[in-house]
C-alpha cells in the first residue's frame, strides 16, 4: 500500500502515463481516418494497445521505484512474505492502471465520437478483469527485470508476448461491448480465457515470486 501513498504524494508515474496514453490516442488519429465508421470496430484494439503501453510505464516503475537507497532490499528483509509484498505492488499497479483507463475512456469517446457507455457494466467487468491480468503479469516481470541490464528493454520484450492472450480477449470483448452488443455465446470463450488467465497467473505469480525476490 505504501506504493499507492507515495504515488498519491509524488504523482510522477500516473501523470506521465496519463499524458502518455492521451498522446498515443492522439497519434492514432493520424494513423487512420478518425471520423470513419470503422472506428467502432477498431475501438477495442486501440484502447487496449494504449492501456498496454501505459501499463508498461507503470509496471516499469513498480519495483524500480524502490531501488534508490536500497529500499527494495529493506522491503525484502522486512518481516512480510514476498508474496504479500508482491500482492501489494500488484494491487497498487492495478489501481493506477485502472485510474488511467477510466480517464482515457471518456477522452477516447470524445476524440473519436464513440458512444462507449451502452454496455457500461459489462465493459467495466472486462476492464477490471483484464487490468488485473495485466497488473499481475506486469508486476511479476517487473520483479524479474528490476536488477537487470537493459531493464526498460527487457521488460516489454518479455511481458507483451505473455500478455497477448489477456489483451486479445480484452480487445474482442471490448470491441463487441463498445459497439453495443451484449456478451453472447460466441464471446463466452474470450471471457473464459480472460478469467482463466487471471486465475492461472495470479496463482503462479504468488507461488513463484519468492524465487525472484528472496531466492
Amino acid at each position, binding site marked *: 500500500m505504501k506504493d499507492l501513498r507515495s504515488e498519491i504524494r509524488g504523482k510522477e508515474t500516473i501523470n506521465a502515463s496519463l499524458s502518455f496514453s492521451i498522446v498515443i490516442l492522439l497519434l492514432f488519429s493520424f494513423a487512420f481516418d478518425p471520423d470513419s465508421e470503422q472506428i467502432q470496430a477498431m475501438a477495442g484494439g486501440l484502447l487496449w494497445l494504449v492501456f498496454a503501453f501505459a501499463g508498461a510505464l507503470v509496471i516499469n516503475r513498480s519495483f524500480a521505484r524502490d531501488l534508490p537507497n536500497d529500499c527494495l532490499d529493506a522491503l525484502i528483509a522486512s518481516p512480510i512474505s514476498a508474496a504479500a509484498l508482491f500482492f501489494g505492488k500488484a494491487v497498487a499497479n492495478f489501481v493506477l492502471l485502472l485510474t488511467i483507463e477510466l480517464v482515457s475512456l471518456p477522452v477516447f469517446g470524445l476524440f473519436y465520437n464513440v458512444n462507449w457507455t451502452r454496455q457500461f457494466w459489462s465493459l467495466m467487468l472486462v476492464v477490471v478483469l483484464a487490468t488485473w491480468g495485466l497488473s499481475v*503479469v506486469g508486476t*511479476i516481470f517487473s520483479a*524479474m527485470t528490476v536488477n*537487470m*541490464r*537493459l531493464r526498460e528493454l*527487457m521488460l516489454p*520484450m*518479455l511481458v507483451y*508476448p*505473455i500478455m*497477448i*492472450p489477456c489483451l486479445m480477449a480484452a480487445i474482442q470483448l471490448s470491441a463487441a461491448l463498445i459497439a453495443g452488443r451484449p456478451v453472447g455465446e460466441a464471446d463466452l*470463450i474470450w471471457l473464459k*480465457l480472460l478469467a482463466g*488467465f487471471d486465475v*492461472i*497467473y495470479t496463482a*503462479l*505469480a504468488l507461488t*513463484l515470486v519468492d*524465487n*525472484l525476490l528472496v*531466492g
Partner: protein
Amino acid sequence: MREKLIYGTGVFAAALLVYNLYVMLMNLPDEAAQGAVYRIIFFHVPAAWSFMIGALAAMVASILFLVRKDFKYDAFAAATTEVILVFGAINLITGMIWARYAWGIWWAWDARLTSMLISWLMYGGYLMLREALDEPTQRARFAAVLSILTFPGVIVTWNAIKWWRTQHPGPVLSIQGNKNGMDADMQNTLYLNFLAILLFTGILIAVRMRQEILRRELDGLRREAHSI
C-alpha cells in the same frame, strides 16, 4: 558409456529418418486432394510435437530446479528450450510452405498459427533473459520462473484448434481410437517419423546439456582463479 549411448541413438535415428524418407518419397502415393505437398505433414507435425513435449519437459525441469536447487535441471531446461526453438521454427516454416500451396498465402492470422508464433517468441525471450543475467544462481532461478510462466501459452496453442474456429486442419491423429481420417500406411510413417525426430531432439538436448554443464564448470573455475 554415455557417449556411446548418444551416438548409438543418433545412428538409429538417422537410419530411421532415411528409411522414412524412402517410404515417403517412393512408396506412399500422392494425397488425393493435395498432391505431393502433403508430405510436409511428416515433418510439420512431429516438429510441433517435439516443441510441445520439450516445452513440457523444460517446465518440469524448471519446477524441479526451484524445488531441489540442482543445476543439472537448469542445464536441461536451457538446453531443451534452445533445441525446441529450432523445432518450433521448423514447424512454423514448413507450415508456411504448406499454407502457400494449400491456402494460397504464406501466413493466415488464425488462432493456431498466432498462438504458436507467440509461444515461439516467448521461448526466444527465455534465451534473451538468460543472456541478460550474469550471476549463475540468479539466472537459473529467473529462467526457471519464466519457463513456468511461459508454459500456459503452449497449452493455449495445443487447444487453439478446439477453442476457436480456425483454418488450421483439425487433429489428424487422435489418441482415442481410430476415429481419424488418415490412411493407415501414412499414419504409420507419421508415427515412425515422430519417433525419429523425437530421438533426434533428445540427442540434441543431451549434447547441448553437456555443453551447458561444462560451461558452468568452466565459469566456476574462472571465478575461482579470479579470487586467487
